[in-house]
């Protein structure tokens, strides 16, 4: 089994209206420096949560927040802390999440030379009206430029995100977005249906009826549309929300779905060592204080519910859940344990099951929470 490392960078220039992640508004380099020092200390601590990583690290992923707010030097110090502590694979997948309008061609070239070989950036929509609604802090031209700059800097594995089902977004709007996305020919696309999280400004706007509440049937239609358009562009759906040219699937994210260990560092980072899940302090100041005072940043730790997670994470992938693998891992037949549920979901057309595996249908993907609940 190979492992991955996740590094969380919480800073953002501004907060997007739909976001409920652990993020902090970027207040200049000083605060980031202090955070990076803490990160380096956490990664390097020989007594930290992962004293003896036994396996190679295959993927390194910088997520956020906005990791592209890191200067190349800051990034480099973190990467070298990781490589000092862990054995890195030769073909390491090193992903950095970026936001348009935070990167310049020079910065991208510098990232590239540090070893970043996969870029994932947030476009969300090519429609300027909708970008304003989402309070993204950039416009569509910034996104297009970022794409061009990435290619110019030599990135050969580029992914970006789009969100469907925005308030007021029509099927036509979504189609226009998809057309442009496909025309850019990225190696990878993440396409999401908007989720409204309580407490976000967007949720408030919908509640106060300042924005129309997105219709779930329209969202379902958008989902169908994106499956068709990505397929005809040669992007295979390999997970509910992820599409890639063959060989360009996110190796890092796949680790989550196949229950490979991933070690997380930084504020609100989550780790999984194969048995237990633990998570770090969610507040950046508290995180930094803890690390600086030599304490652990881990605030919660619990055994993973491996059986149910194996099934619901496995079903997120289009290849589905392999019955034989389930039996090998857990010593029982899933079809005995959940036979009735599997039959019910099959008869509702939400999954298909054969001798070897079961997987979601298109409709099952749209209603995947209903399917997963069966296996909890």
């Amino acid at each position, binding site marked *: 089994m190979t492992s991955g490392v996740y590094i969380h960078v919480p800073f953002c220039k501004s907060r997007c209206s739909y976001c409920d992640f652990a993020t902090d508004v970027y207040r200049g380099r000083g605060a980031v420096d202090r955070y990076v020092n803490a990160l380096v200390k956490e990664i390097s601590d020989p007594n930290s949560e992962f004293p003896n990583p036994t396996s190679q690290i295959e993927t390194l992923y910088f997520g956020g927040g906005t990791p592209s707010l890191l200067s190349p030097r800051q990034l480099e110090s973190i990467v070298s802390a990781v490589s000092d502590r862990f054995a890195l694979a030769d073909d390491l997948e090193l992903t950095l999440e970026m936001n348009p309008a935070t990167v310049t061609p020079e910065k991208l070239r510098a990232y590239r030379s540090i070893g970043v070989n996969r870029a994932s950036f947030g476009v969300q929509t090519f429609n300027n009206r909708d970008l304003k609604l989402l309070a993204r802090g950039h416009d569509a031209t910034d996104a297009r430029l970022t794409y061009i700059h990435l290619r110019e800097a030599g990135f050969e594995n580029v992914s970006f995100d789009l969100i469907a089902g925005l308030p007021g977004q029509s099927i036509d709007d979504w189609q226009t977005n998809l057309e442009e996305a496909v025309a850019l020919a990225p190696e990878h696309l993440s396409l999401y*249906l908007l989720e409204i999280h309580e407490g976000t400004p967007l949720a408030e706007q919908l509640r106060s009826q300042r924005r129309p509440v997105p219709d*779930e049937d329209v969202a*379902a239609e958008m989902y169908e549309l994106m499956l068709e358009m990505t397929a005809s562009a040669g992007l295979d759906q390999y997970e509910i929300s992820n599409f890639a040219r063959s060989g360009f699937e996110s190796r890092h994210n796949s680790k*989550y779905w196949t229950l490979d260990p991933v070690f997380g560092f930084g504020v609100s980072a989550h780790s999984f060592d194969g048995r237990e899940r633990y998570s770090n302090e969610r507040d950046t100041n508290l995180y930094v204080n803890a690390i600086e005072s030599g304490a652990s940043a881990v605030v919660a730790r619990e055994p993973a519910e491996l059986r149910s*997670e194996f099934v619901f994470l496995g079903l997120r992938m289009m290849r589905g859940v392999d019955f034989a693998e389930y039996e090998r891992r857990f010593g029982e037949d899933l079809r005995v344990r959940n036979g009735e549920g599997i039959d019910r979901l099959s008869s*509702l057309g939400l999954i298909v099951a054969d001798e070897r595996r079961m997987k979601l249908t298109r409709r099952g993907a749209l209603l*995947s929470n209903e399917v997963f*609940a069966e296996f909890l």
Partner: protein
Amino acid sequence: MVMNPENIRNFSIIAHIDHGKSTLADRILQLTGAVSERDMEDQLLDDMDLERERGITIKAHAVRLDYKARDGRPYVLNLIDTPGHVDFSYEVSRSLSACEGALLIVDASQGVEAQTLANTYLAIDNDLELLPVLNKIDLPSAEPDRIKEQIENIIGLDASDAVLASAKTGVGVEDILEQIVRKIPAPKGDPNAPFKALIFDSWYDSYRGVIVLFRVIDGSLKKGTKIKFLNTGREYLVETIGVNRPRPTPINELGVGEVGFMTASIKTVADVQIGDTITEAANPTKEPFPGFQEVKPMVFAGLYPTDSAQYEDLRDAMDKLRLNDASFFYEPESSTALGFGFRCGFLGLLHMEIVQERLEREFNLELITTAPGVRYRVTTTSGEVMEVDSPARMPETGRISKIEEPYIEATILTNDAYLGGILPLLDEKRGVQKKFEFVTSNRVMLVYQLPLNEIVLDFYDRLKSVSRGYASLDYHFSGYQESDLVKLDVLVSGEPVDALSLVLHRKTAEAKGKLVTAKMKELIPRQLFEVPIQAAIGSKIIARETVKAMGKNVIAKCYGGDISRKRKLLEKQKEGKKRMKKVGRVEIPQEAFLAVLKVNEG
């Protein structure tokens, strides 16, 4: 030594709600020295919290008062306070039959109301001497002459001698007592005949068991006597006898015409039937006191705990309540929609409200009540006659040859200005006019035959609104009549939902079906499949709505590691479903049923 009946006067008070009965009773208690000014608690006789709050009397009471009249002789006056609501008219008639006279209290500005009228007729039926009293005479709006004329026109009672009183200021109260002594006949009875007494109320006391209120007709009773209830046939040894002054006071013997209580180790009030006759077991009377009836519930509804874990608590609470209220019936019932609960029978709507409120208040329960209904008499095609008090138990349409429903005769008193709203309402409620009479120049008395079922739905509120509160209603059961009734079923995904079935008249079924299905559509969350909601009479669908299949339910991103958080989210979602009620494979939140039950009531 027993009292000389010549010096006893037994009387009751008849009044419409708010015409001042309780205040007057309090004044009488004060004037006769039964309570001192210091102990005076407002509305002393209504001692249940509910009675005070609602300003109504639910239980009968009896108080023994000593009064030295102007003729210089000491009298014992027994004031028997009766419930004032149509739901309890049988109890009222029993209390009245324990008296020789009654005060007829009429508000000197408001005049005679339907409720006063009904109880007055009961008093006349029981041969009581009626003493009209015009109360609230101190108010500037009082019009004693007009109200006297009303009393004479409507009731046919000579009001020339009516006392003008104000319970508030005390004016006229002594005159009332004098009239009681002079005009109400002394009780008659044979002191040497076998002991005979009428039970007019009972209640449960957790220390002493059941306490029975009675009025002696013949003979006398001492403690230690073995007595027998004629109708139930049960025998008991009398442990204590006493009178309320108003504090319970033991007494050695009660003779002809006297009113008092006894205890005899009786476990529940269900063993004591109101209207039953008490006699001596060893020397029984030949003739029971006339007028006894078994108490029959008229209004039925399902009571369910909101939280199914409270089912046992509800049963215990009902057992306890029934110790004290034998007129309330219940039996276990289960419903796919609401789980386990009870089908309950009540004397009327007020009684139903009181029981529900007492269960919730005194036993800390949260209850769901299904739409109230009546007991139908159904004749099946095979000629079998059955009584059906729950729509869910109505036989299939094809097996029914006829349905009869209980009818009432309703008396409404109102001003002619409101007839424009009231007559169409009565028409809509399938009323048949029996009488339309101007009792004064602008006051109208209406008598209608109405199906009881129409009354238990929203009649009161509607009548109140079309008459702006200026219509009073009273009614009594008048028998069963055949009607064109149908059972309306609500089907979710083809499955009938028992708790939502209704029996109603064919002409209103379609509109109601549309209303209910539309409401259900709003309230049933989208499922994994399309859910048809139908309203049907037998196999005929009269309304249909469809809940579309769910569009999406997907967690967009699932990385990082808050996989535990996502899992908990999914678990929470699953938990929420467990709390839903299942009809077939459709999951319906309980709130949906509650909302539809509300529609059914309206």
